[in-house]
């Protein structure tokens, strides 16, 4: 297993070098003559106006929470998807896959499928709740006027 992740490590090291090397190199060779013009943040040629710290709409937070919940769901589905075929085949490959685990408790493909279905239905309730509450719609009819901009 370490061998496979050595590839990941090599990619990570190359990525780090690609990011860090130009920064270090340019810091060494560039002349340092700062002016207020140069230090202002670049906004496509526009002069930046106001504070960069604005308060974001709380709805971003809800979207982020929804994202986390369904990302965790996907991570729970991954091991299930990997072993599903072995269960469907009646478990011949399963003993090898599971190593010393002998106790399969008669789980077959259908049962394993239903197990995941229950998992998904419970989370679908959450999705339905969020949808019904209107959190999936970005522009709401109830908000009006300048509140849209906050």
């Amino acid at each position: 297993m370490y061998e496979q992740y050595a590839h990941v490590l090599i990619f990570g090291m190359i990525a780090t070098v690609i990011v860090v090397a130009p920064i270090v190199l340019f810091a060494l060779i560039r002349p340092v003559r700062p002016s207020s013009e140069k230090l202002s943040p670049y906004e496509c040629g526009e002069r930046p106006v106001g504070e960069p710290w604005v308060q974001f709409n709380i709805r971003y937070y809800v979207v982020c929470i929804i994202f986390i919940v369904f990302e965790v769901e996907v991570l729970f589905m991954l091991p299930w998807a990997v072993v599903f075929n072995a269960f469907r085949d009646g478990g011949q490959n399963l003993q090898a896959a599971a190593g010393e685990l002998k106790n399969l408790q008669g789980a077959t493909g259908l049962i394993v499928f239903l197990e995941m279905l229950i998992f998904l239905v419970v989370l679908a309730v959450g999705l339905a709740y969020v949808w019904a509450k209107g959190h999936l719609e970005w522009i709401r009819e109830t908000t009006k006027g300048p509140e849209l901009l906050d």
Partner: protein
Amino acid sequence: MFDFLFYLFAVIGVGAALFVAFTPNVVHAALALVPTFGSLAGLYLLLGADFIAVTQVAIYIGAILVLMLFGIMYTHNIARLSGEQVTMQVGAGLVVALITLFSLVAAVISTDWPVRELSEPQPTVRRLGVLFLTDYLLPFEIASVLLLIALVGAVVISHSVQAGKSKDPS
């Protein structure tokens, strides 16, 4: 190689964690959590827990951190708050810190640390899948209920925040 990688990840992790604790800028602290979480994922991999490592990267770096940054940005007047570090309750904090230090040191001393030869770890995803669907089916299904509660709770709380804001336009 194993030892070198362990110390590399340990140094990055602890160094970044110290930066998180001591930097006056909250946003820098949140961003410094990336190397902290990343080196933790590396340590998990060295221990043979590949699924946990990938989960660490996907959930902590990918999602929790975004949530933290949003949390920082929702804080009122964060630009003016950053830089100030006020120490309150010095006496009580000292007592708690000493008790924690004492119990940690006591735990480290009293634990027996067995040294074992390393064997090449096997990928864990298939074994995890089988365990999820047989022996640990109930915790697996309860996890979905937990996720449901988290989702509904977050929506209800943020909804009440929004309702309070529209009632009181300050």
